[in-house]
């Protein structure tokens, strides 16, 4: 039932809550319990509208308007939302909330088919850089009374928040009817209040979301920038040299590495080093790249100073030993793949045969190398080994401390440096049996990469149609080209 009590308008109060009351006063009152004063979401029954300021779609398969009769109201209809098989698949709307205020987020849900579907209600506090979520189940029939999913939380910050309706499953697509999205103050969902989007110009465009909010099916994501605003993840686990204790380091409110927490933990003295014991896979697939051996761990803080190039924090492989971080069982058999690695040289390029990464099984017969110095000083090369070996690339003119993006794709897409194709030959040996991903080296060691790593993104799928979009996303963040 829609609220017909006009709460929030000026009226002679019959409800005064905790305030003193005068019989002769007129007050702008708050609504009594059970009556929401306002639905803070717009377009509560227009979940298909996806312009800026409306329900932004991230990794969504489709949203179909007016696809089902709504649970209450009779004359209204619900939208069906088809989530892709990704926990970041969602629709979301930006709202402004007040710190210390309790809110309840709610929506009616019903599975479009004969099986219950899982989804999440969540929020993300853009000021604090954190959020929370609750898993919900969409039943196979509407229930006007009990079929409303709700999530109550207290805002930690004053500022903008993403309010999200998203898939709860990383491995299965979900198809759900939604109707009557609402956000109201208070500890419970109030009587439903319909809202609509204004006709005319919309709000200014919202800021770009993170990489994982724009590109799905990522198999492994290692970076010092945040993968998605939908999940709270850590970037790295760091061992400090002063006492060998370790601590996880995450991200700040902007999705950048939390360097304040990092330096507070490691220290800023001339002998304080911070070594990376784990480069977390933020994709959610659990492919963390680790190294338990101290002398092989790359540095992120050296001599009390954050390691950076052009202001971007990075991992430094020039530690004098056999640097590497390794994730086991990343992929079993190479089919279509796409690899995007962002790094910078540290030496003058005269040191040959530094392997920036390897995907391989520890033998020489099946692996993908990205090798610095294959063609001589200051060159990149790609070495693909399988039934037939490929050795190509060897682009020259590589400069010290410049940030480079190498893209390696299967089939006829080949190998790119900073978006420029170096070869259209197949840069992947399909059918190769592999297991591990090694960063800063090959799996067997002995070829440490002495430069710096910013980001490594691995897809076990064809991404040729997304290549330019992915490269643009990376370039936009790291300002490479």
């Amino acid at each position, binding site marked *: 039932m829609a609220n017909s009590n006009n709460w929030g308008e000026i009226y002679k109060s019959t409800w005064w809550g905790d305030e003193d009351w005068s019989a002769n006063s007129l007050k702008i009152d708050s609504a009594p319990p059970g009556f929401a004063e306002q639905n803070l979401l717009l377009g509560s029954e227009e979940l298909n509208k996806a312009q800026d300021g409306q329900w932004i779609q991230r990794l969504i398969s489709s949203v179909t308007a007016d696809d089902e009769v709504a649970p209450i109201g009779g004359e209204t209809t619900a939208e069906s939302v088809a989530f892709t098989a990704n926990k970041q698949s969602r629709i979301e709307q930006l709202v402004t909330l007040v710190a210390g205020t309790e809110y309840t987020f709610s929506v009616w849900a019903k599975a479009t088919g004969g099986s219950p579907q899982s989804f999440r209600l969540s929020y993300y506090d853009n000021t604090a850089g954190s959020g929370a979520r609750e898993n919900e189940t969409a039943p196979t029939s509407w229930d006007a009374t009990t079929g409303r999913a709700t999530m109550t939380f207290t805002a930690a910050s004053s500022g903008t928040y993403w309010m999200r309706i998203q898939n709860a499953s990383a491995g299965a697509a979900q198809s759900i009817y939604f109707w009557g999205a609402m956000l109201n103050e208070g500890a419970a969902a109030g009587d439903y209040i319909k809202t609509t989007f204004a006709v005319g110009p919309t709000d200014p465009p919202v800021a770009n979301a993170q990489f994982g909010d724009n590109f799905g099916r990522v198999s492994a994501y290692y970076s010092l920038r945040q993968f998605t605003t939908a999940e709270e993840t850590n970037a790295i686990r760091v061992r400090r040299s002063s006492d060998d204790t*370790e601590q996880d380091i995450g991200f700040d409110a902007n999705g950048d590495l939390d360097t304040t927490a990092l330096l507070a933990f490691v220290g800023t003295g001339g002998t304080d080093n911070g070594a990376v*014991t784990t480069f977390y896979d933020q994709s959610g697939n659990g492919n963390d790249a*680790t190294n338990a*051996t*101290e*002398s092989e761990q790359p540095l992120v803080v050296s001599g009390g100073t954050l390691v950076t190039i052009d202001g971007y924090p990075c991992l430094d492989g020039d530690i*004098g*030993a056999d640097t590497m971080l390794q994730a086991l069982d990343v992929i079993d058999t190479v089919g279509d793949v796409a690899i995007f690695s962002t790094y910078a040289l540290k030496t003058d390029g005269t040191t040959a*045969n530094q392997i920036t990464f390897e995907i391989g099984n520890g033998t020489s017969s099946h692996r993908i190398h990205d090798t610095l110095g294959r063609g001589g000083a200051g060159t990149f090369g790609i070495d693909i080994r399988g039934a037939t070996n490929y050795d190509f690339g060897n682009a020259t003119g590589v400069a010290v401390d410049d940030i480079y993006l190498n893209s390696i794709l299967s089939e006829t897409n080949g190998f790119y440096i900073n978006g420029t194709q170096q070869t259209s030959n197949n840069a992947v040996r399909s059918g190769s049996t592999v297991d591990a991903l090694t960063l800063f080296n090959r799996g067997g060691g002995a070829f440490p990469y002495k430069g710096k790593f910013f980001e490594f993104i691995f897809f076990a799928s064809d991404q040729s149609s997304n290549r330019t979009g992915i490269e643009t996303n990376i370039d936009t963040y790291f300002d490479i080209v």
Partner: protein
Amino acid sequence: MSWYIGTLEEVEAYNAKVNEAKAYKGSITSNWANPRQHPDGSKWAIAANNSIEPQEESNLIFEVQLSDDWTPEVEL
């Protein structure tokens, strides 16, 4: 980073001594270094910890850096 050169047994003994002294407190790190074999198979190297000397009876040889012959060519 500097290195100690010797037999496999000698470099492993040095590594064990460093590990005992370090008594790692973190959840990931548990080892100082991995022995590295020369490409010709004749000797081994291990990263030197500047704060910890080898055992007195050790015949390990200290090197400021490994010579180029410790790095094999990338296999083609």
